[in-house]
């Protein structure tokens, strides 16, 4: 990272999850502020760039919109490299897409670790919440528990269509990415690496959980 007076941060963020859960729609909403029901299926990977002002710094988010079909896994996994954060998306109207969430998370964690040995910050998105609520996401406590158990830094009910919680989710992710970057720098500086307990990680994240 540059350390001169005009600081600029660049983060690569993955957007993964089953086919048709709305990954592309979420990105289009976040970056281009619009929604269309007519997005074409993503083949391979698509890209978007979002520039944020964050505490008087410029943060550039490189969003990697990765095709959802499991079969592509072998070739799209190379795209995980050097990512600093991820969204895992599921469709609240399709329970199977939620069941795949743990699979996506395990896949991500097995392929990608930060230099300090930790996993990248990952936010879970329960998309299409405008189309009715899943039994699971209805139970906030259960979802928080699910996130803690599976190492998500937070979860949001989102709707790309109605523009619900997309910015909030992204801010949450950026916040955690910056925190983990600081953490990495510290562990690089000090000769002794102090392993942190998972509990601590969970504690810092509660701020992210929405209180509805």
């Amino acid at each position, binding site marked *: 990272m540059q350390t001169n007076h005009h600081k600029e941060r660049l983060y690569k963020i993955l957007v993964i999850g089953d*086919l048709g859960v709305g990954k592309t729609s979420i990105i289009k909403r976040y970056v281009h502020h619009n929604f269309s029901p007519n997005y074409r*299926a993503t083949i391979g*990977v698509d*890209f978007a760039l979002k520039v944020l002002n964050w505490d008087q710094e410029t943060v550039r988010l490189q969003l990697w919109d990765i095709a959802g*079909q499991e079969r592509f896994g*072998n070739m799209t996994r190379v795209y995980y490299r050097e990512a600093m954060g991820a969204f895992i998306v599921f469709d609240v109207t*399709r329970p*199977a897409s939620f069941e795949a969430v743990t699979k996506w998370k395990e896949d991500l964690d097995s392929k990608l670790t930060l230099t300090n040995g930790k996993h990248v910050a990952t936010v879970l998105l329960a998309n299409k919440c405008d189309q009715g609520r899943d039994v699971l996401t209805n139970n906030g406590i259960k979802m928080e528990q699910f996130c803690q158990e599976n190492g998500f830094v937070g979860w949001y009910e989102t709707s790309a269509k109605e523009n619900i919680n997309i910015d909030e989710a992204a801010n949450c992710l950026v916040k955690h990415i910056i925190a983990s970057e600081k953490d990495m720098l510290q562990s690089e500086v000090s000769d002794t690496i102090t392993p942190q307990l998972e509990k601590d990680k969970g504690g810092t994240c509660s701020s992210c959980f929405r209180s509805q």
Partner: protein
Amino acid sequence: MATASLILYIDRSLFARRVKDNRPVEQRDPGWKLFGKVPPREGPIKDPKKVQKEYETKSGRGGPGNPTSPRQSVRKNLDFEPLSTTALILEDRPANLPAKPVEEAQKHRQQYEEMVAQAKKRELKEAQKRKKQLEDRCKLEESIGTAAQTWNQEILPNWSAMCTSRRVRDLWWQGIPPSVRGKVWSLAVGNELNITHELYHICLSRAKVKWKTTPASSAETETEDAGCSDRESSLELIKLDISRTFPQLCIFQQGGPYHDVLHSILGAYTCYRPDVGYVQGMSFIAAVLILNLDTADAFIAFANLLNKPCQMAFFRVDHSLMLTYFAAFEVFFEENLPKLFAHFKKNNLTPDIYLIDWIFTLYSKSLPLDLACRVWDVFCRDGEEFLFRTALGLLRLYQDVLTCMDFIHMAQFLTRLPDLIPAEQLFQHIATIHMTSRNRKWAQVLQALQKDHERGSPVLKH
């Protein structure tokens, strides 16, 4: 062809009318308010269609199916009377002010005339340009018409004898007329698999049985054992993807005229090749075929197309073979566009990032549909190497833009190409790409790389 005849008609009527008709437009068209100066209409307000009809009969061109817009009727006058002369008027100073000195008045008059002359010149130029465009389009439509005749009457009846001739190959490069495109594709792709219409119907009925026996789409992934869940849930994936195939055309979506056809072909294929199943990208290929062929013939072409070595490698997601293809592509990339190649290398932009989409959908997703069909034309003629040649043609076309970009902007640009891509220019660029590298052709380069990889190159381990 409807558009062809329409354009021809408009053009002809335009030229014909210019000669005999010198009356100002507004006198003939009492219905159009747009041109002002029309006294308020008396009588009941007519609906626009009626007005249109009356206008057509009055102007003597009430032919069937010739919707004319007011613009076209005004345009005919442009060659002779530039609009600016009516917009810019030289007036004397108002009476309550002292009159201009003669000298000044003359100077102003001169300036005014110069301005009008310049405007006239510019507008004349524009009018001529428009006329030229119209003529070009006309010529193009006419050439498509004559080409269709040639294909239908000369080439198709003598296919096996003529298809490799120089003349046919040249004609082929220029694009196959839409009316014979499907037939030519079918013949060129062939039917090595010997699929009959009957076999298609058998596969389809099997698919239908499957659709019925899997009640809730979401439940199936749980019941199937994990290993083949992906293949087995093909049917669900198809449903999700169909609506996302050429959504802008609104014909493959639920309730659209080709929704069931696309569903049938993809479903039948998963029964024909359960080992391959449904893979994203297939829906785009099947859709393009459906637009050019009858259902069963589209299925035959689809299955045979996917059976080609390059397509099989990609749709079976044979990772090491795909990497071999990318490596071969890079050999020709470096050979043809060394500067851009170096720029890509410097920015870590690997070919998989843009080629995956292009190869999986045979450009039907990334190029405008008519242009994609032209790529398919030559792909049917030249085989897989043309897919990679097209990629290099695209990179060459946008070389200057790309060399000014960083990784993310290049990746964005290539995964979402401009909406308007000049077809002729693209094909000119493709034509300049040489598919030989140190005297080796595409197939030889590919084969050599394949052998290297079989010997166990560590590069491919991931």
